[in-house]
């Protein structure tokens, strides 16, 4: 018996060793098959901000630093993250200097230099280029190459969080030699470059079929000679989320499937086939109901849903806003529509951890009686048909959102709960491309908000919430004067809030920033500008034979594909 155990242990050790040995060599694990049911259209994230395109290109193009699955920055093309402490960020917070790792090469064998980084900035800020990541490069005075390996970004204003450009999959570095003739209006015409970018990532493009399939092979000049474990990779596109899930979980044809937003019970059933694992991660996305603080009635004509049109006839009453929020059972919404991809939340800023508040959890438990009492106390009494009214104003709500089966199911549930507390609800859904389209001529966009409440998801990139939290400034209220642009959709206006935004813009200390952000979050929720519902995660699935997946919501889901390998 003892002998047998020894043999078994020996075999196990040998197996582990051979697995380790196999992992230490590039290209030994065959092909990595990834499925994105939204097909990749282009491999240049500067010309397409679509998630699928950003993820696809992240196998090839890399930023200076990435975010790991906890939202912590990790060096990619540099050796360390510049901070004030290590001297990389200037004391006045107006510049940051990155030092590129030594001996770094592009996949074509040419050296990667600071000039490539400078060029990337020029590429995205060139006029008429339509760069979709221009946001990352705001407030930059200059980007200059100090020497071949150091690049200095100078800002026009102090940046407590100077890691906007060249961090995360949305703003990778592109090669100057390849893209030098593609500046400005020429950018979209460089089809060859946009389809076959040269990068520093673990893979390089072999073949690109737009809106269909991309074939990659291991990058022979990748900085870690033992990676990637896979010799080649494909990203197949097209179809729908359910069949993508099936191809990983049931038939085992693919190794990794992205964004499986399907009914939770179907996904659970597929996972029982035992071929794959469902993984989820949570970023900053929050499904919320935004409450119109202004009057959306057509009676006020051009001043509909603007501050000039006056306050909302009944949603301006804090009791009504609070009652609407506590009447909702968020756990049921998660169960019905989200499963592993959702958590009930009362925060509009649910992550990263040091920014997440725990002070407003009063909304987590449904309290129909409490809601009724609130309304009773505020003088809203049920009329003959059970709908509450006061001074001739009926609590009748128009509730709009985009067309999407989960959203419509949520609407129906919420309508029921509101009915119970004596609020009448009319439901409306609008096609997503119109609702989010931002056409100033359309009355149906979420910015115009010609409704009492509306529901959608918003989030922010990266881990710093400063810009996101400044969405609710008084001056950012959409109105005809600014062409309905502006992020303050609920038309919330509070001087105390504006002061907090200003305070955050000059605070560098992470702890302090966290405290301010939490205060802002609590203020928005307690004031009832919005009703947070669900902290939405991303759900993907990987085959049980694929090792190394660290599902990430802060960066591309393929961020660490260089570490992926075939499980032995």
């Amino acid at each position, binding site marked *: 018996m003892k002998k047998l155990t020894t043999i078994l242990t020996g075999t196990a050790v040998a197996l582990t060793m051979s697995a380790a040995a196999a992992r230490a060599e590039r290209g030994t694990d065959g092909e990595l098959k990834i*499925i994105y049911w939204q097909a990749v*259209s*282009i491999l240049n994230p500067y*010309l*397409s*901000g*679509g*998630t699928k395109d950003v993820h696809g290109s992240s196998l090839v193009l890399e930023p200076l630093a990435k975010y790991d699955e906890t939202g912590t920055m990790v060096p990619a093309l540099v050796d360390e993250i510049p901070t004030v402490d290590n001297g990389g960020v200037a004391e006045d917070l107006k510049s940051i200097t990155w030092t590129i790792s030594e001996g770094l090469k592009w996949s074509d064998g040419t050296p990667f230099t600071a000039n490539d980084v400078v060029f990337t900035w020029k590429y995205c800020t060139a006029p*008429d*280029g*339509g*760069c*979709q990541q*221009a*946001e990352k490069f705001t407030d930059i005075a200059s980007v200059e190459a100090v020497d071949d390996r150091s690049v200095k970004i100078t800002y026009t204003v102090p940046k407590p969080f100077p890691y906007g450009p060249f961090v995360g999959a949305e703003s990778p570095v592109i090669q100057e030699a390849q893209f030098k003739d593609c500046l400005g209006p020429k*950018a*979209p*015409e460089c*089809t060859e470059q*946009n*389809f076959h970018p040269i990068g520093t990532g673990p893979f390089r493009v072999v*073949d690109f*079929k*737009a*809106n*269909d*399939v991309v*074939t990659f092979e291991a990058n022979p000049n990748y900085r870690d000679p033992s990676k990637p474990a896979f010799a080649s990779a*494909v990203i*197949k*596109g*097209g*179809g*729908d989320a359910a*069949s993508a899930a*099936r*191809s990983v979980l*049931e*038939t085992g*044809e693919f190794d990794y499937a992205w964004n499986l937003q399907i009914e939770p019970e179907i996904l659970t059933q597929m996972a029982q086939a035992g071929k794959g694992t469902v993984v989820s991660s949570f970023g900053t996305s929050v499904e919320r109901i935004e409450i119109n603080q202004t009057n959306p009635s057509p009676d006020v004509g051009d001043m509909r849903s603007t501050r000039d049109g006056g306050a909302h006839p009944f949603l301006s009453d804090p009791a009504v806003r609070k009652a609407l929020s506590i009447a909702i059972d968020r756990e049921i919404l998660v169960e019905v529509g989200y499963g592993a991809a959702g958590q009930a939340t009362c925060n509009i800023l649910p992550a990263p951890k040091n920014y997440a508040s725990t002070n407003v959890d009063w909304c987590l438990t449904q309290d129909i009686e409490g809601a009724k009492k609130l309304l009773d106390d505020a003088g809203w009494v049920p009329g003959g048909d059970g709908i509450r009214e006061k001074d001739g104003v009926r609590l009748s709500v128009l509730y709009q959102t985009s067309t999407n089966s989960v959203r419509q199911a949520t609407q129906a549930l919420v309508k029921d709960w509101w009915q119970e507390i004596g609020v009448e609800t009319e439901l409306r859904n609008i*096609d*997503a*491309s*119109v*609702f*989010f*389209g*931002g*056409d100033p001529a*359309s009355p*149906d966009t979420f910015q115009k908000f010609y409704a009492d409440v509306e529901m*959608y*998801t*918003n*989030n*922010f*990139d990266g881990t710093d919430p400063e810009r996101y939290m400044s969405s609710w400034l008084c001056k950012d209220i959409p109105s005809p004067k600014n062409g309905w*642009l*502006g*992020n303050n959709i609920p038309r919330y206006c509070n001087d105390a809030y504006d002061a907090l935004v200003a305070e955050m813009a000059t605070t560098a200390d992470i702890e302090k920033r966290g405290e301010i952000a939490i205060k802002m979050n609590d203020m928005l929720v307690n004031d009832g500008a919005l009703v947070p519902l669900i902290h939405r995660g991303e759900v993907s699935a990987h085959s049980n034979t694929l090792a190394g997946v660290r599902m990430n919501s802060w960066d591309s889901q393929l961020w660490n594909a260089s570490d992926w390998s075939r499980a032995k």
Partner: protein
Amino acid sequence: MLNYTLRRLMFAVPTLLVISFIIFALLDLAPNDPTGNLPLTIPPEVREQIRQSLGLGEPFPIRYLYWLQQFFINEPLNLLEKILGFPIGDSAERLRIRSWATRSPVVDLIIERMPQTLMVVGFAYFFGVLIAIPIGVISAYKQYSIFDQVGTFVSMVGFSVPTFFTGVVFIVIFSVNLQWFPSIYDTQLEVTDWSSFWQQVRQMVMPVSVLALYNAAQLSRFVRASMLDNLNQDYVRTARAKGMKERVVLLVHVLRNSLIPVVTVIALGIPTIFSGAIITEQIFRVNGLGQLLIIAIQGADIPLVQTLTFIFAVLIVLFNLIADLLYGILDPRIRYD
């Protein structure tokens, strides 16, 4: 006949112009936005710049004229260049119709996808015809027999059950449970030897049979109805009275006459080969034109939708003409002059 053809061709030009205007205007007026699908984290100012860079700043008539010029002059010139292999005029500066999502020329995308559609949908159509004719003939000849009843039932099912249902049922049965065929079409596969050929056959089986069933269901009804019409004609009785064999009566006299309307129906259906079986391609992830159209619609890629839809319109007009001409050739009684 030649006169008639020329007249019809000339008439096709204004028809197509009107169609192109309607397609362009409809898609343009539809409330749609190319930046609508981008993450909300991209701010409105950047969205406006993106729209400008896509050429949306120009007024509608100008964009329409540009598109006409690109479609009718620039793209054919480019194609010609590719075929001949030498440059005509200033080809580098020639504006091409560009997709908004991929930023690459629309025509290149279409050419890349044409073979898959022709192969999968073309085969499906071919097999559909091959199945439909014998079933139709036998059903008509043995009207109300068990064969006819079963045939009618099957074709009614094939006709009324949509391909997005049969497709998924096929995948669940043959891919998930039996694991006979792959559920996802490998568009990278190149047929170089027997094993890759076998793989190609295996992956084509499901999409082709789903579509073939659907096509056969429709066509067999046509064949049956047309056969029944002819079987009661006087010339059939005459043929039988002359002592001809049943085989000859059926296959030579009746079938030939019955096929005239069927051929028209088949010809009119050919444009659908090109437009791809939109839904079936999407289900099996065949990278054909139908799937391209769906992706373009979902992504609000207007230039691609406009161009594809217009090409389908051209094909429909063209095959209508061909069907009419075929009718004249097959049936000597019909003359157009």
